[in-house]
């Protein structure tokens, strides 16, 4: 029964995609308002059924099977895996997606490709739902790629903007680079044991000890590479900040529930395999490094969406770090809370843009009084992200920081240190953003920015629009209210500290989600450390006060050369984009390797062919002369060859 429901959850978005991209598009045209309602309706169904699934835990037996391939030595069967981890992910994905659809009804209003937008959105949601409920790793990969392509289509949604198309391509190719690792591991695991592609079977095999550590290590390296690409972890993180070229509502979905969470989900889903391998330290290190460098880049960015994008990378780094340290439930919990407040923040950014006509915070300011709902939503979600007691972000971040402490040793304390520094920086850039956007006086918005860009002869991007300072329409603000509500209270679902509340047991979330690993016999440690909680809150509060104080009245802070240099380094994203795009891809790969290959192809292989044909032609032409019809030359040839033959006969004896 539960599986059947899950199947419906999976299919309805695809039905929505099909209806929107064919029937609605043909019958009602490309701006049809119906498409938005169709999407909201179908994804609403998914949400309701997901909630039912969440409260009706199912076992991992598999009733719905689909034999995809049945060759002699290659059998692949697809199925559904509805365990606690999946059921939580289903609610996150369909819930956030539903709210984003509602928001989009207002945000995308009047766009000339309204129908196409909603068609892509339902494809995106459906693919992510399929990803989280896949039972077979190859099946997971299929949806993984579909998530990738739908985000490609959505990031490049405004395909007349060159920057959007370039960003979309960058996102797809960089994640594909990671997918190469994913693909490798699938192939590798299959050749180790075809049954191991079934996730439940894999759990069982690892628990029974039939998977050698070496195999697990190699396979998990590939999966990790895939996860790094998808979840924008260092060193494949640079596509995510650019990915905001799509509509803001798309960014909200990409950054919270779909796409980037897929990488974290993959590590969580294959947690036993990773746990069994020798690369857990590597995972934790990647997470820690990512969270640190992304947070630093967030400190100086002036684009509101970019700040949020860096914060996403940084928070994903937290989750990956926690997974690397073995804190399974802490990572999932943070993914859960983060989805709500990050979606809220992005939707707020969209709302701010709606009013101010720009994403550049230099031209904002003073919006607090003009758009109260947006302001309070952003404040709540921001405080939650900063991890300040008692909002939900606090509880989940605290569990992660606690896990570093519990891990102990030099490495654990190093992670703890990084975690605390990141907590400080997160609070700093979040309050910097809020302060620059809502406090002080209004600095002209899109009108002003356009004026400045024009006077400097820079092409004005299409994101710069006219100012009309007022609160956004209801379709856009209602989802904000809902998300803010969750940003406050959803943390209590975990109930990390109190004794049993009325209907939420102590550590309810952790215990629930760890049931997914029952077969693997995993048990996390659940505790609450008052000192650590106090410490992380202290860092966050210091950070926010520092930011509020510095950005109270000004937009730029320091004039000192050292700080300026650091600022420059951060603005240039540590030159990583430069290294990848300019040096490696353009200069080394495209201009050197590809160019020489193409040159060789044209000038060597083709020339050899041409020379060969010329040679045959000449050879034929010259042989023609042998038959010149002159009887005396034939006679000469006859006599000469006669002499030669006689000579040969004499010489050979």
């Amino acid at each position, binding site marked *: 029964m539960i599986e059947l429901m899950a199947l419906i959850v999976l299919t309805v978005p695809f039905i929505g995609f099909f209806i929107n991209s064919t029937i609605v598009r043909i019958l009602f045209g490309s701006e049809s308002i119906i498409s938005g309602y169709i999407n909201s309706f179908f994804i609403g169904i998914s949400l309701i059924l997901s909630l039912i699934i969440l409260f009706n835990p199912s076992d991992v037996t598999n009733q719905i099977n689909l034999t995809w391939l049945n060759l002699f030595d290659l059998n692949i069967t697809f199925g559904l895996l509805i365990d606690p981890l999946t059921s939580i992910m289903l609610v996150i994905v369909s819930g956030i997606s539903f709210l984003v659809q509602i928001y989009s009804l207002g945000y995308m209003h009047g766009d000339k490709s309204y129908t196409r937008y909603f068609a892509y959105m339902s494809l995106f949601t459906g693919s992510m739902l399929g990803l989280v409920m896949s039972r077979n790793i190859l099946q997971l990969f299929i949806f993984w790629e579909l998530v990738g392509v739908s985000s490609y289509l959505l990031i490049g949604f405004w395909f007349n903007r060159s920057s959007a198309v370039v960003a979309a391509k960058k996102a797809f190719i960089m994640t594909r680079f990671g997918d190469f690792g994913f693909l490798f591991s699938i192939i590798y695991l299959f050749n180790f044991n075809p049954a191991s592609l079934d996730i439940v079977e894999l759990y069982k095999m690892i628990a029974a000890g039939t998977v050698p550590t070496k195999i697990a290590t190699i396979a998990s390296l590939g999966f990790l590479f895939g996860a790094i690409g998808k979840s924008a972890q260092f060193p494949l993180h640079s596509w995510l900040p650019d990915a905001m070229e799509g509509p803001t509502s798309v960014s909200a979905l990409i950054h919270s529930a779909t796409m980037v969470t897929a990488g974290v989900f993959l590590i969580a889903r294959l947690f036993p395999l990773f746990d069994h391998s020798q690369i857990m330290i590597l995972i934790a290190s990647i997470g820690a490094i990512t969270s640190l460098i992304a947070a630093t880049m967030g400190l100086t960015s002036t684009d509101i969406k970019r700040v949020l994008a860096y914060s996403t990378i940084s928070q994903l780094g937290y989750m990956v770090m926690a997974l690397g340290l073995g804190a399974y439930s802490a990572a999932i919990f943070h993914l859960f809370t983060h989805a709500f407040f990050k979606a809220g923040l992005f939707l707020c950014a969209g709302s701010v843009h709606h009013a101010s006509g720009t994403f550049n915070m230099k031209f904002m300011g003073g919006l607090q009084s003009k758009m109260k709902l947006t302001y309070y939503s952003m404040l709540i979600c921001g405080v939650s992200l900063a991890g300040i007691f008692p909002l939900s972000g606090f509880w989940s971040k605290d569990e992660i920081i606690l896990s570093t402490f519990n891990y102990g040793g030099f490495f654990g304390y190093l992670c703890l240190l990084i975690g605390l520094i990141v907590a400080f920086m997160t609070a700093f850039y979040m309050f910097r953003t809020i302060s620059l956007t809502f406090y002080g006086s209004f600095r002209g918005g899109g009108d002003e920015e356009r004026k400045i860009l024009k006077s400097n002869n820079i092409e004005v991007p299409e994101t710069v629009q006219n100012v009309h300072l007022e609160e956004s329409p209801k379709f856009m603000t209602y989802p904000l209210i809902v998300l803010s509500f969750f940003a406050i209270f959803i943390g209590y679902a975990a109930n990390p500290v109190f004794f049993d509340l009325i209907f939420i047991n102590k550590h309810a979330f952790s215990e629930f989600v760890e049931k997914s690993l029952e077969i693997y016999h995993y048990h996390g440690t659940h505790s609450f450390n008052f000192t650590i909680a106090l410490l992380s809150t202290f860092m966050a509060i210091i950070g926010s006060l520092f930011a509020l104080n510095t950005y109270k009245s000004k937009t730029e802070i320091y004039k000192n050369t050292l700080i300026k240099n650091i600022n420059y380094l951060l603005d240039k994203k540590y030159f990583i984009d430069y290294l990848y795009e300019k040096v490696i891809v353009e200069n080394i790969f495209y201009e050197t390797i590809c160019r020489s290959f193409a040159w060789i192809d044209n000038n060597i292989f083709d020339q050899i*062919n041409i020379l060969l044909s010329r040679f045959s032609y000449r050879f034929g032409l010259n042989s023609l002369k042998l038959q010149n019809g002159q009887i005396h030359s034939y006679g000469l040839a006859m006599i000469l060859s006669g002499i030669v033959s006689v000579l040969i006969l004499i010489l050979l004896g």
Partner: protein
Amino acid sequence: MFDYFLTLIVFLPAFTAVILLFFKSRNKIINISIFSSVITFIMSVYLFITYDKNLGGIQFVDHFEWISSINIKSSYILGIDGLSLPLVLLTGLLSMVAVISSFRITKRVKEYFIWLLLLETSVLGVFTSLDLLLFFIFFEFELIPMYMLIGIWGSGRKEYSAIKFVIFTLAGGAFMLLAILALFASDSISSLSMVSIPDLNIIGIPDLISGKNLIVPASIIFFFFFIAFAVKLPLWPLHNWLPDAHTDAPTAVSVMLAGVLLKMAGYGLFRINLGFFQQTKGFTIFDASHLLAILGTISIIYGAIVTLRQTDLKRLIAYSSISHMGYVLLGFSAIGNGINFSNAALNGSALQMFTHGTITGLSFLTVGLIYDRTHTRDINKLGSLTNKMPIIAVFFMISGLASLGLPGLSGFVSEIIIFIGTFKIFPIYTIISAFGVVLAAGYILWMIQRSLFGKNKLLNKDQTYKYEELSDGTLLDLLPAFILTIPIFLIGIWPRLFLSLFDLGIKEIIK
């Protein structure tokens, strides 16, 4: 159904070509050609449905003796098995698409359709004939229509490309002829049938050749056949004719060339190189599998890298074809050493032929539609075409995404099966080849970005077309493209439909 059904399918297009001689009106000629190609396609679908999968083996056999002496026997034998049936279907499908998409032809219409239909007959003949001599005749006959079609109805350096195509293929064909003669020279080879058909008391070469002494060493015969097919596939470093031929050929001919003509080579590899040389004395195909894997890998990576530098849409797709046909050879190399081999990879290799046929057919078709409107294929003069021709753009996107191996579309299925299967035999080459998937994403997305999206890049001074006047395809333009997307989605979602057939055919070929 009735006897000689297969013969009817093969020769119906040729028969129509003769009929066309008696007509003058352009419309009638086009209608008759379309009608004939549709009927041929329907008959190939009928074959596909009625082929008895439980029985397997070779069915729909047409046979009569042709040359029969004590020393050598060559007969007219047509028949299909699991390997050739999907390719016959592919030929029917793509020929129909090619004929329909040619409805705008105005230059020497009658001759054009006559050659196109003769081309269809010769390709169908290659896939159905079970006699080596007959196979060779059909294989070589295809050159004549292709030469005419490229040389007369082409564009650019059409004569150069046509003659280049002919010389390359003819050189390959010469090697095949030598190989056939070398086979024939041995006493033990008393029949030129490519398979054994017990019902008709025909013992084929695979059984005759096994364990016998041959006058010419088996290795030489093997490589002569191999070279003939490597040129056609085309395999690095014998590939240079393909980009030229594609660039200058008319749209429908490009569709046929990429869609079915290249598959004759893949089919030949399976039927002849694999079919004959498993138990030969002194040398078997298994000794060559390593070499095949290396050549396949080089083709994949080399093709992909060169593709990245192309700026002509057709040239770009032509080079990507070289890369994609490399997968066919890579999967084929998974025969390994004969004991440790991968059945899956061989199936993937066969499926890749079918999927590449439909995907690349669609690519060339849509590029043709774009070219009809813009009169240029230079990517640097295109851009933002989606605004003006959204539906053509959708089909172009589908072909691109299928080509880069997007799950849900057919290219992914064959590639993943090839990778999974070949990894068992040649792990290193498989990993290197799998990187081709990343490169494919690069060149496809970049191509799409520069031609369909962004800003239009046509400068005022080159007056090849007026951006404002561009229009989307008409219903008849889009019909062939739509037809081709059906198998792309169908195989992507339900690969068993074709794999079950290929599996049957390949199982019979492998002893």
